[in-house]
C-alpha cells in the first residue's frame, strides 16, 4: 500500500477499518453463528406454519454472521495503527459509575426511592465534582430527589417504593 491511501485527504469511508475492528468483527461473526443456532433451537409454533416464528431470527442470525465475515475481510486489509488512547483513567471512572448504577438498581426496592436516589446522585457528584464541593453536591441531590418524588407521587400519581 502506498502512502496516499492512508492520506488525510481520503474520505472517512475509505480509511479502512482500524485494527481493533478485527476483534469486533470476529466477535460479531461468532455471535451471529451462536444466534443462528439459538434461533434454530427455538420452539416450533403449535399452530400454523411450525417454522413461522423461526424464520426471521434465523435469517437475522445468518445476516449477522455474514456482516461479521465481511467486516473480518475488510479489517484484515487494514494496515494503519490505532493511535492508542490513554484509556486507563477513564476506564476506572466508567467502571465506578457502572458499579454505582448496579448498586442503585439493587438498593432501589429495598431501601426506597428517596434514600437510594439521594445516595446514588451524591455518590456520582462526589466522584465527578469532587468532595470539596460537598455542600453543592448534597443540595443538588436533595433538590433532585425531593423534586422527582413530588412529581411522581403528587402530579403523576405514581407510587415510588
Amino acid at each position, binding site marked *: 500500500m502506498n502512502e*496516499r*491511501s492512508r*492520506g488525510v*485527504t*481520503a*474520505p*472517512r*469511508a*475509505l480509511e479502512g477499518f482500524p485494527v*481493533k475492528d478485527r476483534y*469486533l468483527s470476529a466477535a460479531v461473526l461468532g455471535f451471529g453463528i451462536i444466534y443462528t443456532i*439459538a434461533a434454530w433451537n*427455538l*420452539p416450533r*409454533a*403449535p*399452530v*400454523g*406454519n411450525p417454522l*413461522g*416464528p423461526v424464520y*426471521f*431470527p434465523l435469517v*437475522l442470525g445468518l*445476516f*449477522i454472521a455474514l*456482516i461479521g465475515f*465481511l*467486516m473480518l475481510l*475488510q479489517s484484515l486489509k487494514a494496515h494503519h495503527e490505532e493511535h492508542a488512547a490513554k*484509556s486507563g483513567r*477513564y476506564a476506572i*471512572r*466508567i467502571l465506578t*459509575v*457502572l458499579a454505582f*448504577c*448496579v448498586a*442503585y*438498581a439493587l438498593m*432501589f*426496592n429495598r431501601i426506597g426511592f428517596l434514600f437510594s*436516589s439521594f445516595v*446514588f*446522585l451524591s455518590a*456520582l*457528584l462526589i*466522584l*465527578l*465534582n*469532587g468532595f470539596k464541593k460537598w455542600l*453543592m453536591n448534597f443540595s*443538588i441531590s436533595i433538590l*433532585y430527589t425531593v423534586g*422527582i418524588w413530588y412529581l*411522581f407521587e403528587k*402530579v*403523576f400519581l*405514581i407510587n*415510588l417504593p
Partner: protein
Amino acid sequence: MAMLEYLMYGFKVVFIPSNFLWLTLGCFLGTVIGMLPGLGPATGIALLLPLTFVMKPETALITMCAIFYGAMFGGSRSSILLNIPGDGSAVASCFDGYPMTLKGEAEVALAISAIASFIGGLISSIAFVLLALPLAKIALMFGPPEYFALMVLALTATASMSEGKVLKGLLSMALGLMVSMVGLDPQSGVSRFTFGNLELQGGIDFVVVIIGIYGLGEVFKNLEKIGRGEMLQPIKKKFGKIWITKEQWKRSLVPMLRATPIGFLIGILPGAGGTIAALMSYNVEKRLSKEPERFGKGAIEGLAAPEAANNACSIGAILPTLTLGIPGSGTAAIMLGALMIYGLQPGPLLFEFYPEIGWGVVASLFVGNFIAAVMNLPLAGLLVRILAIPPKILYPLITALCFIGVYAINLSVVDFYLLILFGLLGYAMRKFEIPTAPMILASVVGRKFEQSFRQSLMISGGDFSIFFKSAISVTLLILAVLSLVYPTVSAALKKKRHAV
C-alpha cells in the same frame, strides 16, 4: 379549501393553554438541550418520553416536535460561541459561525442563525401542510407487502447513509431487530429469547433501549471527556443588540431559500439526518458563491445556509413519521415509538380520526418556530449562560434521570439492569464507531417489520412473489438495494480516482 379549515382547527388545538404552555416549554428545553454539547434532541426526547405518558397524545407530540426543532435553534449557539457543535447537525455552523465570533460579530452570527432557522422552519412547515394529505393518501394503498418494502428501504437507507460505513450500519440495524425479537411472538405465542425470564416475555421496551443508548451511553462516553478541560474556554456573556443589517440580510436571503428545500428533502428521506443536510447546503453555497474564499472566514451566508437546512430537515423528518409511520431519522424514530405507546397508528388515519393530533402538530410547527425564534433572539444572551453549567454536575443528573425515566415505563427494577446493559452497549458502539440510529429505528419498527413480512406470506400462501407484485413495493425494494449499493460503488469510484 378544506386544508385551511383543518389548519385553523389545528391552531385552535395549539392555543389550548396546556398545549401552548408545553409547546413553549418544549422549545425552551430543545434550545437548552441543543446548546449543551453532547446532548442532542434524541437524548432529550428519550429522557422526556416517560414524562409524556401522562399527557394527552397531541400535547406529547407537540412537545416532542418542539424539542426536536428547538434543538436545531440551540445547537448553533455553542458552535458560534465556542466552536463546539452543541449537536451533530450544528457542525457546519462552526465553519463560519465561530470565525464571525472571532471577528467580533457574535451578535450578528447569533441573530442570523436564529433568523435562518426560523425561515427554514417556516417554509418547511408550509411544505409539510401541502404534502401531508397527499402522502397520507398514498399510504392508504399500502398493504403488508408494501409496508414491508417501505421498512426495508427505511432500514437499509438509515444503515447505509448514517455515517458512510455500510457494514457497521447494517450491524447496528441487526442489533435493533434482535432486540425486537425478544418476547412472545404475537402470531404464534411462542416465547423467543426470553431465557425463561417472565419479565422478558412482554418484549424489551424500546424506550429502555433508547434511554440506554442515547442517555446512559452518552453519559459513559462523556465521562472520558470530563476533566480534560475542554470547557475552560470563557464564554462571551455580554452582548450588544442581537440583530443584523440590511446588507447582511440581502446576502443571506437567497442562501437560506436554497438551503430550505435541500434540508426538507433530506429530512423526508429515511437515513440522512440534519448533519448531512447542513453540510450539503454549506457545500452548495460555497460552490455557488462568487467569492468562495470568504467561506470559513466568517461569511454570513455560510452560516445562514446550514442553519436553515437543519431546521428544514427536522421538520421534513416529522412528515413521513406521521403520514407513513416511517421515521426519517433516529429522533423521529423515538417519536414514532411514542405514538405507538399511546396506542396510535401513525399514517393516513391519524389525520382522519385524530385531527387534533395530526393537525394540532402541524399547526404547532408554525407557532413553535415563532416561539423558538423569539426565544433565541432577544433571550440569546441569557440562554447561553446555560453553557456555563459544568458537565461534572450535568452528567450525574442525567444519569439519575435516565433511571427514573425508565422506572416510569413499567415500574419495574428489571428495566434498570436492561438500561445499564444498553448503556454499556451504546458506549461500546460509540467506541467502535458503530452508528446508533439504525439500531434505534430497527428496535422501534422491528416487530411491525417481521409481522408485515409474515402477514404478506400468509396472504400469498407462502409465495415470495407477493413482494414483487405491486409497482409500489418493487420500486421501494429497488431503492433499498440502490441505497445499499450506492455508497460502496461511489466509495470504490473515489478510491480509483485517488489511486490515479
